[in-house]
C-alpha cells in the first residue's frame, strides 16, 4: 500500500497517508527526524495537520532516514512520498540517490514520476483518494524554498524530464486550477464536434469512460445514442471510426433546414451519429427551445377551453374576390385571413373583455384597450408569432399592408423581438395546411387564440336547400381564468357571424 518500494527494496518511501477518512492533503508541521537518523518501525517521524486534526505519523520501516522530501510548512497531497528510508544502511554508500541535491530538485524529481496505475488517483482506504493536482507542492505558508520548489516542479513537468532544474526565481504558489466546463465544442477529432447541449460533463458509464480514455477519444465530442443521452461503447467506436475516416464525418444535409442554419456543429455530429443509429439527435435550442418553454408555460398555467363553430363563408370569399379588384386595395394582398383578422377585431370591439391578460403576480386582470394582433407564422427558424400593433385602429388597407409586411419579415427571418412581444390576441391559420381546425394553445400572456381552418366547398343547407357552399371551421381557445364560456362563445359567434355575412363589418364595425 503506502509503503511501496521506490527503485529497489533498499530505499523505501513512506507516503502521506489519509489519516482522517477521505482527506486529500496534509501539512507537515514538524519533522522529528533528520537525514541520517536511525528509525524503527512504528517510530513517530513527523507531525502533520489535516483539515480535521494534527496527528503524528509513525514510519513503517526500520532503517536510516535517507531523504526528507518536503520542508516543514509544506502541504502535501495524500499518497505523495514524504520520506525515504535506507532499510539496509550497511550495504554501502547510497550511490543511486543524490546526497546533497537541493530540495527543489528532489521535489521536481518526485513531481515528474509517473503516476501509479490507479486511474490517476492515489489508492487510499477511504474515499476516492487525492486527485493529482498541480498544487502538489503548494505551501500553505509561502516560504522562499517552498515557492522555488513549486516553480521547479512545474518546470520539470513542463520539460518532461527528471534532471535537477536550476532554481527559478521565487514565484507565487500555483493557484488552484478551477476546472472549466467546456462550453464550446472542441474539434478534437477532425471537425467532429458536438456542443454539449447541457454544457455539463458527458454521461457515460465507467467502462466506457475508460475505453474512451484508452482510445484517446474525448467524450465531449462523442454523439450519445444511449438512453438519456448516455454515451455508449458503440458511440465511442463510431466517433473514432469517423475521425479516422474524414469523409464519413462530412456534414450530411438534414431534413430540417432550420436546424442546419442554427447549429452547423450539431448537424455534423448528427450525421456521424447516423452511422451507428437511425435516430437523429437535434439539440433543443433557439426558437425550438423558446417555443417549447412558451407552450409548456401556457398549457400548464392557463386552463384552456376550446370552442368550435362551422360556418358558411361563401360571402366572405366573394368579398375577397371583389376586394382584390378594389382600387383601394391595389398592390395589397387580399386573402381570407385578412377578413378573419378584421372579423376578430370587430368581435373584440363588441366584447372587449376578451382582450385581456391574467396578471398572476398582482392578482389582477389587465384589460387592454388596444389590440396587438398576433399571427402565428411558420418560418425557417420555426414557429414565431409576430403581432400587428394597434390593429384595432387600422383600416382594411392598413391592416393588409401590416399583415403583408409581417409575413414577409417573418419569412426572411428578420422578425425582431419587439415584433413578437406585447401581443394581446392571436390567429393561427392552420387552414393553409388543409386542416379543418385544431385546439390551439394560447400565446403566453394572451387570453384568446383563434384557429382558422381550411375553407372547403361542402354541401350546406342554404336558404332551405342543400347547396355546395364555402365552409370553414373556426376554433377559439381561451383562458378560462378570465374568459367565461359566455364571453368566449360570444366572441367566436361574432367572428362567425361576420364571416357568414361580411356586411356586419359595416354594421358592427
Amino acid at each position, binding site marked *: 500500500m503506502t509503503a511501496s518500494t521506490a527503485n529497489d527494496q533498499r530505499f523505501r518511501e513512506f507516503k502521506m*497517508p489519509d489519516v482522517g477518512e477521505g482527506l486529500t492533503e496534509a501539512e507537515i508541521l514538524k519533522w522529528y527526524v533528520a537525514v541520517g537518523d536511525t528509525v524503527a518501525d512504528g517510530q513517530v517521524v513527523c507531525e502533520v495537520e489535516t483539515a480535521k486534526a494534527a496527528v503524528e505519523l509513525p514510519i*513503517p520501516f526500520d532503517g536510516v532516514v535517507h531523504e526528507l522530501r518536503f520542508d516543514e510548512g509544506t502541504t502535501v497531497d495524500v499518497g505523495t512520498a514524504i520520506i525515504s528510508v535506507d532499510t539496509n544502511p550497511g550495504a554501502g554508500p547510497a550511490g543511486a540517490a543524490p546526497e546533497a541535491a537541493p530540495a527543489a530538485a528532489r521535489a521536481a524529481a518526485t513531481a515528474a514520476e509517473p503516476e501509479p496505475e490507479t486511474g490517476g488517483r492515489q489508492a487510499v*482506504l477511504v474515499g476516492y483518494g487525492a486527485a493529482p493536482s498541480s498544487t502538489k507542492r503548494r505551501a500553505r505558508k509561502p516560504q522562499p524554498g517552498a515557492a522555488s520548489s513549486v516553480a521547479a516542479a512545474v518546470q520539470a513537468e513542463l520539460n518532461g524530464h527528471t534532471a535537477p532544474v536550476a532554481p527559478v526565481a521565487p514565484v507565487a504558489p500555483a493557484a488552484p486550477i478551477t476546472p472549466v466546463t467546456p462550453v464550446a465544442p472542441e474539434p478534437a477529432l477532425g471537425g467532429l464536434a458536438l456542443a454539449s447541449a447541457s454544457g455539463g460533463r458527458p454521461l457515460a458509464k465507467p467502462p466506457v469512460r475508460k475505453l474512451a480514455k484508452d482510445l484517446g477519444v474525448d467524450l465531449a465530442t462523442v454523439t450519445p445514442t444511449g438512453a438519456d443521452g448516455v454515451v455508449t461503447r458503440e458511440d465511442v467506436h463510431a466517433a473514432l471510426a469517423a475521425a479516422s475516416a474524414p469523409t464519413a464525418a462530412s456534414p450530411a444535409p438534414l431534413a430540417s433546414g432550420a436546424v442546419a442554419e442554427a447549429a452547423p456543429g450539431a448537424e455534423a455530429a448528427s450525421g456521424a451519429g447516423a452511422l451507428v443509429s437511425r435516430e437523429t439527435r437535434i439539440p433543443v435550442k433557439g426558437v425550438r427551445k423558446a417555443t417549447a418553454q412558451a407552450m409548456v408555460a401556457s398549457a400548464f398555467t392557463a386552463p384552456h377551453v376550446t370552442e368550435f363553430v362551422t360556418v358558411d363563408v361563401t360571402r366572405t370569399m366573394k368579398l375577397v374576390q371583389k376586394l382584390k379588384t378594389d382600387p383601394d386595395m391595389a398592390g395589397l394582398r387580399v386573402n381570407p385571413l385578412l377578413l378573419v383578422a378584421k372579423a376578430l377585431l370587430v368581435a373584440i370591439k363588441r366584447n372587449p373583455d376578451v382582450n385581456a391578460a391574467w396578471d398572476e403576480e398582482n392578482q389582477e386582470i389587465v384589460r387592454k384597450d388596444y389590440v396587438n394582433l398576433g399571427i402565428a407564422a411558420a418560418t425557417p427558424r420555426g414557429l414565431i408569432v409576430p403581432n400587428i400593433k394597434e390593429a384595432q385602429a387600422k383600416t382594411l388597407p392598413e391592416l393588409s399592408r401590416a399583415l403583408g409586411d409581417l409575413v414577409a419579415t417573418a419569412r426572411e427571418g428578420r422578425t425582431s423581438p419587439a415584433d413578437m412581444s406585447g401581443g394581446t390576441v392571436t390567429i393561427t391559420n392552420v387552414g393553409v395546411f388543409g386542416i379543418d381546425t385544431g385546439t390551439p394553445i394560447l400565446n403566453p400572456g394572451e387570453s384568446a387564440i383563434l384557429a382558422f381552418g381550411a375553407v372547403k366547398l361542402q354541401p350546406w343547407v342554404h336558404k332551405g336547400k342543400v347547396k355546395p357552399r364555402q365552409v370553414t371551421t373556426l376554433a377559439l381557445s381561451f383562458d378560462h381564468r378570465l374568459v367565461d364560456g359566455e364571453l368566449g362563445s360570444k366572441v367566436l359567434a361574432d367572428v362567425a357571424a361576420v364571416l357568414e355575412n361580411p356586411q356586419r363589418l359595416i354594421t358592427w364595425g
Partner: protein
Amino acid sequence: MTVDSTAARKPRRGSSKRAGAKTRAAAPGEPELVQLLTPEGERVEHPDYSIDLTAEELRGLYRDMVLTRRFDAEATTLQRQGELGLWASLLGQEAAQIGSGRATRADDYVFPTYREHGVAWCRGVDPTNLLGMFRGVNHGGWDPNENNFHLYTIVIGSQALHATGYAMGVAKDGADSAVIAYFGDGASSQGDVAEAFTFSAVYNAPVVFFCQNNQWAISEPTERQTRVPLYQRAQGYGFPGVRVDGNDVLAVLAVTKAALERARTGQGPMLIEAFTYRMGAHTTSDDPTKYRRDEERELWEAKDPILRLRTYLDREGLADEAFFAALETEADALAKRVRDAVRTMPDPDNMVIFENIYADGHALVDEERAQFAAYQASFAEESN
C-alpha cells in the same frame, strides 16, 4: 449504589425506594460507584460485590489488559501509516472490557459496538480479524457464532435491540445462557436503547446492558446526554442499575458476573454503567484537543486501569519481574504479528460482496451477482 436481588424481584415496589436511599447515602453530588481496587492499587471491599481471585487469575487479567492496549496502539499506528482506513481506540477502557469480557461464559452471547477490542480478545476472536473491517477488506472478519461474539455494530445503539431479541430467544429456548450488550454514554440517548430497555424489562429477558460511560460521545460530554447518572435510568424501566468503577478490572468483573448470574437465573435484565474515560480520540479521524482540556485527561491518567493493578501485583508480590518481562516480549510479538498480518492482507475479490447475505441464496442477489460480474468483465474485454 446497587440494588440487591430482593429488590430486583419486586422491581415495582422495592427498587426505587432502596436505590434512592443508597444514593442519598453517597457523597453529595457524586453517586456511589462499586470499587474493589482503588486508583492507588489498594484492595477494598464492597458490601454487595466481592471477588476472590488467585494470583494467576490476577496476572491473567493484567496480561489481557496489557496485550489489548498494545494491540490497540499498534492498530492506531497502522492507521497513521495508511494501512487502516479508521480505528476506534479503546485506550483507557481496558478494565471495563477485560473485566466484563472475562465475566462471560462460553455459551453467553456478546453484542459489541465497534470499540470492544478487549471483549473480543476475551472471547477468543483473533485481533487481526478485527482489523480487516477497518482496512476495508471485509465486513467483519469473523463468524459470530464461533465465539458467540456478534459482529461489530457501527450504528449507534442498535445492538441493544439485537441483544434483547436474542435474549428473549434464549429464554424461550429455556437455556441458562446470558446475553450482554455493550454501548456507550452517547448511545444511551438513542431510541433503540430505550426500546431495548422496555422490551427486556417487560419480557424479563436475560440480558445485561453494559454501558461504558467514557464521558465523551465524540465531542459531546455526558452532561449533555443525561440529567441523572446513567445507571439510574434502569429504575424507570423496572430493572436494577449499578455504577461500577470502569477502571477497576476487579470491580467490573465482580459486578458483571453478578449481573450475568441474575440473568441466567431468570431475574431479568440489569444495567451496568462502567464509569471510565476515553483517553484517546473518538477515532483516528478525531482530535479531542479541540473540545476537551488536558487537565481532564491528566485527572484520569491517575486512575489508569493497568497501572493500579500493576501497583497491586507489585505490592502484594503476586507477580515477579520475569512475568512482566515475558509479557513485554509477548506484547511485542503480538504487535509484530498484527503489523505483518495487516500489511499482507489481500484485497478481497469483488464478488465477495454477494456472499453471506442469504443462507439459502436469493434470486435477486443471484441476478445482481451476474450483472456485477458482467460489469466487471466489461472493463477487461477491450483490446484495441
